[in-house]
């Protein structure tokens, strides 16, 4: 079974991602499907949505926060829109379930992803996941408030 990083550990990945252009019948098991497909079947607990870079979370936030898992797709690791989507889901809409980064996500983004509210990371194939975990903690302190800390450093300095 494929593996991913979740909460500082490497675990089995039980969810299969269904791409946007998939038009055959869905396989069985736990599936992460494109947002539109999930919206039509949001009561099926074996399905979870993935958001594209252009999906605006505020338009479907009420339904989304009920999902068992939300994945945010990074079409390339240079496309940073997913960082904003994640913060919106966590901070504005109070989503508490698993938030998973999928697509082209690299080890060196883990620290920023974590700060924006992700807790699961499906890194590109070939990554040494056990070694990559260290990058979640590249920095032990941050200047800004984000999902992981509501107060910026300046409110906490001596």
């Amino acid at each position, binding site marked *: 079974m494929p593996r991913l990083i979740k909460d500082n550990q490497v675990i089995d990945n039980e969810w299969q991602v269904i791409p946007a252009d998939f038009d055959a019948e869905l396989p069985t098991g736990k599936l992460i499907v494109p947002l539109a497909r999930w919206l039509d079947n949001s009561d099926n607990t074996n399905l979870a949505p993935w958001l594209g870079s252009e999906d605006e979370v505020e338009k479907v936030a009420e339904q989304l926060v009920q999902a068992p898992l939300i994945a945010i797709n990074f079409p390339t690791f240079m496309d940073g829109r997913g960082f904003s989507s994640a*913060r919106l889901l966590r901070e504005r809409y109070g989503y508490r379930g698993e938030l998973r980064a999928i697509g082209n996500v690299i080890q060196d*983004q883990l620290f920023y992803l974590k700060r924006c509210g992700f807790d699961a990371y499906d890194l590109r194939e070939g990554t040494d996941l056990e070694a990559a975990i260290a990058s979640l903690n590249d920095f032990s302190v941050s200047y800004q408030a984000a999902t992981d800390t509501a107060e910026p450093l300046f409110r906490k300095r001596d």
Partner: protein
Amino acid sequence: MYQYDAIDQQLVDQRVAQFRDQTRRYLNGEITDQEFLPLRLQNGLYIQRLAPMLRIAVPYGLLSSRQVRKLAHITRTYDKGYAHVTTRQNIQLNWPSLEEVPDILAELAEVQMHSIQTSGNCIRNVTSDQFAGIAPDEIEDPRPWCEIIRQWSTFHPEFAFLPRKFKIAVSGSQQDRAAIQVHDIGLQIVKNAEGETGFQVYVGGGLGRTPIIGSVIREFLPWQHLLTYLEAILRVYNRYGRRDNKFKARIKILVKAWTPEAFAAKVEEEWQHFKDTPTTLTHEEVERTRSFFTQPPYRELDDAAAEQTLASHKAEHLAFARWLERNVTAHKQPGYAAITLSLKPTGVPPGDVTAAQLEAIADLADKYSFGEIRTTHHQNVVLADVEKARLFEFWQEAKPLGFATPNVGTLTDMICCPGGDYCSLANAKSIPVAEAIQRRFDDLDYLYDLGDMTLNISGCMNACGHHHVGNIGILGVDKKGEEFYQIQLGGSSERDSALGAVLGPSFKQEEVPDVIEKILTLFGEKREGDESFNDTFSRIGLEPFKERIYAKAH
């Protein structure tokens, strides 16, 4: 200047460790070229035509003599013994090796320096006025605000992969010496009727392929809200800025497409969610930051007596008088002046400085100016707090070091990008053009008659040499594999910001000095009194210049 505490230091140290590991993994083949690209860029490392280039951050242009000595040491140990001052007040090394960059960063961290976010699609080094804190026309010192923005933008987790690079400049004076209207965000410090500090917010200015002057989206942003408002602008840009075309990805394109009003409305809507969150600035934090930018221990000096001494030296030494006129700037503290060390002597690439010169600058700063040094976006160096009574002594010392070329603010004090000699983006060389112009116009009396004049040269349309906003702008273009130069007139990056108008068809490199000479001759003929070039230009327009240049030449 700002001093790191244990936390600031820890962050730059951890950055060095992070990049050391990334470089190791890259050299081991564990990271692809494509993945390594943004990682090295966000540490200021480019791969250039001949070698890597490392851009070191100089936050809002402020350096200590200790830092400058470290830079000298680094250029000797890891490079070819010289460095380059950029148009964003940073320092570039042209010949480091990739393998040694982690060691360079570790050396920088020892003196509270880094190269964080000096490149890449992220929030870049914040720039400001080189005369901050000493300018007589200052409303408020912009440096504490720059430092607050520096910290907020450093490793901001949401904004490290923006559509494109993002540049912020802050001006705290009447005259804009920070070119805020040609930045992604320009902040002008203003006071309201109650005397409270706020910011006039410009957005969407920029040069490059699509030069645009920024638009004001908020006339008065109270200081408490600075960071939450910036956060709202950046979020709107991160989500809606174009990512399909690199040349249309800057915020200016989004602002233009939506209109500044619609953009402002979207920012306002986003800001309602950020406003009054804990990121709202506190008095304590602003005061803590301000405490690093207090006045140096000035002496009580007799300004009139100092002026008298200067007058007698001036009478005896014409060269000193010239230097005083061009390279010395008024100071708000009686008896003090600011000195601009010209990095534009003829025959040296504009902004280049050798290791020995860096050390000399550090020595001069210690001896005359409280050990502090500033870089300028005009690619010069400023010592901001020199006693007027010591200016003659200073000048005698600076002259043999090559810093006393009395050309600051004149035609030959040009802004110039590294161009085709170094840069892999360039269409044409810049440095030889600058040198040819400096050689042609070496008559100081003539330069002084012309008065304040900006001549900016870029080797390609990315406009690192700010050619759009030079009174005279020169742009290198490629015509069927040959290097040509297009000329623009009437640009400015100050309060009266304007983009230059293209004169007409481009010229060969060897024709450029002649063309500049014709432009200046016509200016001399049409000028009324002491009019500036741009005043004459806006009065008579482009046509007379076109006629003069193209009638005979073609």
